[in-house]
């Protein structure tokens, strides 16, 4: 398998790398260590710069007016864009724009007008409503939010938990049990406007990272039948499909903070002197740095392999789960070792490690836990998948 970057990929990567180092990192010196937004003037200026460079919304398909950068390149870019303090959850503070949730490409023309295009233009924001208090790992069984058909609409009751950004979103993709007799075929995805009567943000749920998630409640929320995304009963397949895709760049973003942490650790190890010698001369420290490199390179390889398979149109579910599992866990180990190398400074808010340490921990839970990735892979193995 050839993992050599093409000339075009190298050019894009170099440009993004320069942007992160020269435009983003210096701004962080004046921001609170937990900030995840730039001030509006910088935000506007950087977005304009990126648009000028022709690199805005790189993942947007050509038919929707974007450059349609392929998934392998996007996987490489996710690693570049996260190489700064806020990079894991706010890569480049959004200066490169974000692509709409992939589910929306599967909407009707009317739904695209109402949701997809406004999201592309940055006028609307979406949240993802799958997990519930009854459990997120096994949504096919645990979704209790219930929809009952009433003429041309559905009456929805229940609630969701852990919905990132639901308090600021204009609408959400909400998974509802519409037929309790049909298991996973009884779940339907609805497009729900957040100003629908009966929709409530019950509370903001504080977590390890500097941004919270939300708990939602739905009381007699009436949603027109035309707001179903995809097929009635097809919600589970829709969720599974897009989650598998998202896992790959999600995984490789974790490598970005690991790369930056390693850079800082190498620099520190060379300059910090203890017992008359730089830390870099100590085998204990050298081994930590080498283990970091092994962790990063092996997981990068797996993430790119998953992306390459997805790009070739081959089955990639196993590989995307493996990438998600390996990258999130490897990045956690790398950050932890880099903190150790920095001693007390590694714990301080003066350095980005403590933020990364908190945020990367969440990555072993979000988008399917490490255990669930193993479940997915085990299912694949035991069904004796061909083509591996």
């Amino acid at each position, binding site marked *: 398998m050839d993992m050599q970057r093409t000339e075009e990929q190298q050019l894009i990567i170099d440009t993004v790398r320069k942007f992160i180092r020269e435009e983003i990192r210096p701004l962080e010196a004046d921001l*609170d*260590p*937990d*900030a*995840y*937004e730039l*001030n*509006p003037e910088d935000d506007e200026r950087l977005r304009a710069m990126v648009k000028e460079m022709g690199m805005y919304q790189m993942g947007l398909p050509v038919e929707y007016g974007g450059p349609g950068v392929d998934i392998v390149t996007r996987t490489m870019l996710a690693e570049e864009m996260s190489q700064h303090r806020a990079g894991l959850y706010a890569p480049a503070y959004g200066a490169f724009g974000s692509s709409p949730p992939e589910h929306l490409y599967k909407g009707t023309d009317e739904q695209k007008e109402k949701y997809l295009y406004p999201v592309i233009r940055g006028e609307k924001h979406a949240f993802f409503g799958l997990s519930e208090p009854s459990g997120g790992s096994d949504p096919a069984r645990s979704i209790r939010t219930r929809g009952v058909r009433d003429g041309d609409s559905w009456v929805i009751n229940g609630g969701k938990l852990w919905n990132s*950004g*639901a*308090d*600021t979103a204009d609408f959400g993709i909400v998974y509802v049990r519409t037929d309790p007799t049909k298991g996973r075929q009884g779940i339907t995805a609805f497009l729900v406007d*957040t*100003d629908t009567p009966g*929709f*409530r*943000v019950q*509370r*903001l749920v*504080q977590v390890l*990272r*500097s*941004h*919270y998630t*939300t708990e939602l409640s739905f009381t007699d929320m009436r949603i027109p039948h035309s707001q179903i995304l995809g097929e009635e009963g097809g919600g589970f397949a829709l969720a599974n499909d897009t989650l598998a895709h998202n896992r790959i760049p999600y995984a490789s973003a974790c490598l970005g903070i690991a790369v930056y942490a390693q850079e800082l650790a190498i620099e520190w190890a060379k300059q910090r002197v203890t017992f008359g010698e730089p830390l870099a001369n100590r085998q204990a420290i050298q081994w930590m740095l080498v283990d970091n490199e092994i962790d990063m390179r092996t997981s990068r390889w797996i993430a790119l392999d998953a992306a390459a398979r997805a790009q070739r149109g081959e089955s990639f579910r196993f590989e995307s789960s493996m990438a998600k599992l390996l990258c999130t866990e490897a990045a956690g180990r790398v950050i932890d070792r880099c903190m150790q190398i920095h001693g007390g400074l590694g714990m301080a*808010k003066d350095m980005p490690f403590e933020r990364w340490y908190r945020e990367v921990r969440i990555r072993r839970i979000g988008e399917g836990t490490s255990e669930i990735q193993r479940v997915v892979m085990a299912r694949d193995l035991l069904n004796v998948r061909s083509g591996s």
Partner: protein
Amino acid sequence: MRIRKDWSSWDPGMSFKTLPGAMGIYEIADEQKNCIYISYAGGASPYGLRGELYAIFGMPAGADKWNWSHPHPESIPAEVKQRAKYYRYEVTHNYYSRWIEDLTRFSEDYETLPELNKLATAPRAPHLGRYHWKSEGI
């Protein structure tokens, strides 16, 4: 969640050790106990909540002998210093997201930010969300 504490009036005679040097969020009220300002002592705050509150209410007499005082008192709007009568705070590592939560609750209840958070000189509030309900003291 609100800061679940009663308002405290500023006592210039108290020991500075009473106030935590930790990160956290705080609210400031005027004479009528109306909350007029919500802010935080973040990871870059030099003396934590203690430093922020002293910068607002002023250092007591004799404080020039202390080996600490807020190096950027101008980062707090002058109007806050003039009208501050009461304070309450919460020590939290999650100061940033709690700050946003507290501001969101306030703006949901009163359909506006606290008066002095609207000043151009106040720290800029990030994009706030909505609850679609009044928080009713929660």
